[in-house]
């Protein structure tokens, strides 16, 4: 997210990537474009930085990958595992709690 405090965004990239991978399997470039499309460009980052996150998820068993060759080009497709779905549900619950809390602060009496 452009110009934002990184600690404030702790866990947000993981939430977004896991959510998108829960819909369908994707390779790195495809995933970056999907993030840019669905967030309407709210996130800005070096596109290569998606790979450390994906590799971390893979090492943690949250996603699995398979290699596929399409039109002479090899791609690594990542998909969410059962463990990843569980982590996504946990992150989603925490995110909802944050949103509820922030919305409460911005309700009428503080406006």
């Amino acid at each position: 997210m452009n110009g934002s405090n990184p600690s404030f965004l702790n866990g947000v990239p993981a939430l977004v990537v896991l959510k998108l991978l829960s819909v369908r399997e994707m390779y790195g470039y495809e995933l970056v474009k999907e993030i840019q499309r669905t967030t309407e460009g709210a996130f800005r980052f070096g596109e290569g930085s998606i790979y450390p996150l994906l590799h971390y998820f893979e090492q943690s068993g949250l996603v699995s990958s398979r290699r596929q060759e399409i039109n002479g080009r090899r791609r690594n497709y990542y998909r969410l595992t059962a463990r990843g779905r569980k982590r996504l549900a946990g992150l989603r619950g925490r995110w909802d709690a944050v949103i509820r809390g922030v919305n409460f602060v911005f309700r009428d009496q503080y406006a």
Partner: protein
Amino acid sequence: MPESSATERVRRALLRLGLPADYASRAAEEAAGHLEDLRREAIEKGLTPRGSEAYAVRAFGDSEDLAARMAEAVKSGSWFGRHSLCSCFFLPVLTLVAAFLGAIVAAALLGDWLGLWAKHLSWSRSTRLAVWWALQLVYCGLLIVVPVFYCWLARRRFGGWKGLLIIAGAFLLHGIFHTFTISAPSASQPGSVTWGCHTHIQAIALLVPLATVFLFWWANRLKLPLEPLQVR
């Protein structure tokens, strides 16, 4: 900087950080695919081939920084990597001790089951020597297998040389201060295994971890191209 340089920089940086060659190649391949997609995207937007390469490299981000973050991702993605002091320093030596004691207990149970211990007083000297050699071989085998296994694991899961060096350090301390001594049988005593602190240094416990680190380092060095790294 052309795309191929960016890809090669990722691969070389990962090898220099001590990650396995297959992981470095896979990461470089992913980077190359991504850069190619970015380049095609730029051409569709109307950029020249030269401009599209520059666009792709810029959008992809800094290769050295990316490699460092990949190494960190490998490390933090596993319990071993997150607890590197425990997994590199304490666990290898504990594994060695547990495996050797386990081997002795297994041999004792097997010998008991076969009824060997009931007649051990009547063992010939050559039989006693054979048992002594077997114990020595198991111990030396473990002194080789355990550090090699943990160094391999460190490269795969702990993301680099630091883990390997800590493992080597742990075994060096073990080799200097903490050893099993297996005494050969003689006319007056049947031979023994003692465990604790000793003043004599176990050469194999010192050399194997160092040799293992050196071999892994050398294997990675062979994968690196000979020309020096270009500094941007």
